[in-house]
């Protein structure tokens, strides 16, 4: 399959089952809602080292949030509900509670829930106040700028993490430009996040390492500087490879995002130095979700 001169490899992205939740962060204005969300989703690129993966899903207008203030919605993914809860509570306590004028609410209603502000309330040192409104419990925690309002819990669901595609280009700058175009096309899509910095990862990994302590290490088959040294997946004209990793609430969300991203890459085309689009997988043995590039782009 060739789109605008870009070869779409006959391969697939391999993704895993995860647990996910959505929360809504509000503040006096979007600037401060984003500050809280950026802190909260910082150091959350990969479960391998961060414990969870998180990102800003989209910006919400004042009329779309529970307390009628500007906000952002954040998606957070973990390998288990317990992991998700552990990291969520830590980040609410350290990143949202501390951010001026912020409040945090559940962004997902589900039968199964995890703690959101349930334990953060104890920061109130006995002065915290509970309010049950429309069946949802909120905690009002007195803080120096007024009151921090946090919903007690949020729902979570099964989700998919690790959808991906690789952009193979003639130069580093061209690969990055193509990835930026892909991210721009995917940013507005609901139910997905691209958890790496700016949505792009340059250090795609394989499972395992020659060093026993490492669960993952560099994917040498796609490292251009090792072309002459290892069994490479790169042709001579490819000098740089970058990856976009996508986590989504459902398989269809990831498919839609991958299609939008790859379309944007292909729109730039071979004239912009984009040679191929590929995907990362582990031979199909680890993840139960397989996203075949050619099926998605058909």
């Amino acid at each position, binding site marked *: 399959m060739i789109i605008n001169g870009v070869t779409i490899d006959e391969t697939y992205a391999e993704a895993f089952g995860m647990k996910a939740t959505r929360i809504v962060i509000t503040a006096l204005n979007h600037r401060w809602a984003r500050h809280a969300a950026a802190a909260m989703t910082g150091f959350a690129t990969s479960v391998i080292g961060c414990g969870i993966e998180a990102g800003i899903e989209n910006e919400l207008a004042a009329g779309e949030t*529970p*307390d*009628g*203030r500007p906000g952002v919605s954040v998606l957070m993914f973990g390998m288990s509900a317990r992991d998700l809860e552990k990291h969520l509570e830590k980040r609410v306590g350290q990143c949202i509670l501390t951010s001026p004028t912020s*409040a945090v609410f559940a962004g997902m209603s589900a039968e199964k829930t995890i703690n959101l502000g349930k334990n953060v309330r104890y920061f109130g040192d006995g*002065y915290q*106040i*509970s*309010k*049950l*409104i*429309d069946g949802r419990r*909120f905690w*009002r925690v007195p803080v120096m700028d*007024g*009151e921090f*309002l946090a919903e007690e819990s949020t729902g979570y669901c099964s989700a998919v993490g690790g959808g991906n595609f690789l952009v193979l280009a003639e130069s580093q700058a061209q690969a990055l430009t193509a990835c930026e175009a892909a991210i721009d096309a995917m940013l507005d899509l609901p139910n997905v996040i691209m958890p790496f910095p700016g949505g792009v990862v340059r250090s795609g990994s394989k499972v395992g390492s020659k060093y026993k302590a490492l669960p993952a290490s560099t994917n040498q088959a796609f490292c251009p500087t090792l072309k002459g040294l290892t069994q490479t997946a790169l042709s001579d004209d490819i000098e740089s490879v970058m990856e976009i990793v996508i986590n989504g609430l459902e398989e269809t969300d990831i498919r839609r995002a991958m299609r939008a991203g790859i379309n944007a890459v292909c729109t730039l085309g071979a004239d912009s130095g984009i040679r191929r689009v590929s995907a990362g997988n582990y031979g199909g043995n680890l993840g139960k979700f397989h996203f075949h590039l050619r099926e998605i782009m058909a």
Partner: protein
Amino acid sequence: MSALTLTLREQPGHGLDVSLLTPDRLRGLSPAAISALPLCNGNRRLQLSSLFDISGNDAQQLVILNSSRHLHGIGSGMTSGHIRIEGDCGNHLGQGMINGTIETSGNSGHWTASGMRDGIITVAGNCGNFAGGALPGDRQGMRGGTLLVHGNCGDRTGDHLRRGYILVAGNAGAYCGSRMVAGTIAVLGKVGPEPGYAMKRGTLLLCEVPGMLPATFNDCGIHNLGFLHLLTRSIAALDSRFAGQNTGKYRVHRYAGDLAVDGQGELLVWV
């Protein structure tokens, strides 16, 4: 199916316990069985049919017409369904109600919604004393749900309130929110003396500073409280004067108290 309608033939001159008449208890009973239901009248028992004309068959939609202030305990402990009352009703309306809805076009007596756990009770007229309050000997009044009063409430509204909303569109009497444990009382009119007396926690939301605030309430200043946006939007959904009034307003003067007991309660006055 049409609503099961009980029409009181004549106003009784004495109290009548009609706590048996709830949608869940009447569901599935034949017309003959409903007619033969015993109602306590002092130390005597009367058959329902001796006092009421009965029509309709849908017990989930119970209608009581020509109601009287002597009919006590309407909707007590009901778990589901809807009761519509045309006229006044007596004491203990919806006492211990677990769920469902009750609406009355007239006034209700004392201890309306006492011990209520969930559901909505709407009183178009006025309520007596201890609306949503605790019965003598009980340690908790309302434990959930919403009591909406379009008119005025008597004294001790929300006494020992544990959870839920008491919304009074008119005025409330003395000791409003006395001994509150938690929950929310909102009053659009005036409140009598000593509001929040001995309240431990909970919120008393008022439109104007009460004339006589207990000395054991401390002024905490004027603040924007975000939870009020959620609260006012929630109660604005009810068909009442609360819709529109103060919706979205979250700037209030906060008084904390009652410091004689715990001081974790609050009296908020919209500014």
